[in-house]
């Protein structure tokens, strides 16, 4: 990961192979069975999100009126009179749940990552600035965060989506990314600020000052690498939180719009047909739950690995 950015400047000495914070952390992380299993599962899920839709003979929009709300089967009738297969069954419009689940995975994961990236950028810049400058500016900036904190976010998402976001298509997706990311950076900002404040006072920063390191280099090479730990941990926990928010909104019919789909939408559709076609609910729920579990286990593992005293 970013282990090259810290340790010894110059790189030549690195042949001695000191054990940096990140080497240690990686060792501890890979010794954590739950985290490793979660990483492998998540890797498989990513691969399926990319290639999954191509593995089905049907596209995620294709309708087959000869086999609607059909159970998973290897020999289903097609509209033209032939036979085909549906590994996860079909929905009420005769669309392939297998293809739809993986398209949903793509959308949900994409929203999770992009919104987390947005929140990361805003949060880290805001928090680091606040912590680094300190004093009055810090006070005011943190008071603003306090105020934003006490606003019920889900209601803000809903208002914004009602007013601006229900146009459908890519624009709608971008809106979701931006809105969620722009409101989920607060904790990230607080964590970054706290870390910056504590790192700022450390001796090695003073030493770097004495050695004549410039302000920008100071932030980039000495402060940022040392505040990364908690930020990375929180980032891993933000992704599932965002996936949940998106699925919540989609469940209410406010998130991703037709014909595109996401796990939240699939679960909403599945919940309505639960009695007649339980497979519509089962598969999206299964994969979403696995994904959320994986992220949480990786987050916990990372926390233990990066901050052993917390165990």
């Amino acid at each position, binding site marked *: 990961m970013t282990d090259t950015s810290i340790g010894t400047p110059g790189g030549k000495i690195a042949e001695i192979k000191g054990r940096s914070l990140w080497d240690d952390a990686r060792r501890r992380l890979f010794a954590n069975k739950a985290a490793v299993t979660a990483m492998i599962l998540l890797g498989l899920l990513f691969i399926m999100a990319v290639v999954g839709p191509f593995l089905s003979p049907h596209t995620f929009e294709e309708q087959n009126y000869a086999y609607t709300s059909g159970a998973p089967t290897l020999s289903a009738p097609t509209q033209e009179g032939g036979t085909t297969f549906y590994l996860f069954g079909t929905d009420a419009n005769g669309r392939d749940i297998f293809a739809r689940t993986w398209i949903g995975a793509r959308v949900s994961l994409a929203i999770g990552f992009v919104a987390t990236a947005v929140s990361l950028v805003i949060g880290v810049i805001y928090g680091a600035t606040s912590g680094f400058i300190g004093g009055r500016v810090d006070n005011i900036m943190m008071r603003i965060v306090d105020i934003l904190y006490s606003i019920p976010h889900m209601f803000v998402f809903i208002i914004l989506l009602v*007013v601006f976001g229900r146009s459908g298509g890519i624009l709608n997706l971008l809106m979701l990314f931006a809105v969620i990311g722009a409101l989920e950076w607060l904790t990230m900002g607080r964590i970054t600020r706290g870390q910056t404040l504590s790192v700022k006072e450390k001796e090695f920063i003073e030493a770097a000052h004495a050695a004549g390191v410039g302000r920008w280099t100071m932030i980039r090479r000495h402060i940022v690498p040392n505040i990364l730990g908690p930020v990375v941990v929180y980032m891993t926990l933000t992704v599932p939180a965002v996936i949940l928010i998106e699925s919540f909104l989609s469940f209410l019919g406010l998130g991703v719009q037709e014909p595109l789909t996401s796990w939240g939408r699939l679960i909403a559709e599945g*919940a309505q047909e639960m009695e007649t076609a339980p497979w519509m*609910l089962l598969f999206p729920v299964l994969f979403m739950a696995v994904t959320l579990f994986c992220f949480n286990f990786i987050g916990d593992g990372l926390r233990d690995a990066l901050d052993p005293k917390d165990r």
Partner: protein
Amino acid sequence: MIWFALRRLMSAVPTLFIVIFASFMIMHAAPGGPFDGERQLPPEIEQNLLAKYDLDKPLLEQFYLYMEGIVTEFDFGPSFKREDFTVTELISQSWHVSARIGISALTIALLVGATLGCLAALNQNSWIDYFVMALAMTGITIPSFVIAPVLSLFFGVWLNLVPSAGWGGGAIPNMILPVFALSLGPLAVIARLTRGGMIEVLRSNFVRTARAKGLPEGLVIRRHALRAGLLPVVSYLGPAMAALMTGSLVIERIFGLPGLGRYFVDGALQRDYTLVLGVVILYSTLIITLNFIVDVMYGVLDPRVRASQ
């Protein structure tokens, strides 16, 4: 202490004002008005209608009138889509449903969550601990809108123990499933928080002192450890309330309960801006007030916080 409360109040009031102002402006900036129907109204009639609802006035004046209505008469204006009702009427018809479910769920989450968390902390690294933590992890990762339909199908349709949906005038059997589904998320978080808090407290010096002076273990836990160990839970009360409110948006929809959450979602889908605005303001007020109370309470409960203020 009073200074601390006053200072917190001074940030709570502007926060609430900002939320209301921003929501109002966004809603009114939205394309389309309340009277855009399929039928084009004659300009005079439209003008009259706009004048009746004060919509022809400048935006800031509209905001002033709106706020005046709320503050003096608790009047949130007319509903745009349910024409014969005012927002206040709709809210007063439905809030008690949401309140009953929410308060029941919060009570259950607190009692069961804190008990489970304590049990886990007192039996750290035993099977009880692992079981509680696994349960908590499940509660945190699996959203209520997944649990709710599954519960409804299993207990309502297949086993036929309780009604699978509907309010039934607030009968207890009708409330069981929604309350249970709603409480799971906060319950899981509370269990985790209690466990963490208790483990830390049980290792601390004042608990060791209490044990050293020969207090029975039950007293040590009840009188000394619990008070400090539950502090993280107190600070979670505000977010828990928010979680319950957002949770009830889907729970009420799934179980078909005539509560505020359903009005809010229907209002949002039908672009009934005044209704949505009214519910948002009500919820924001509740959450911000609760956060304020919790912050002040925290200062009362934990002398260290007070000292640092």
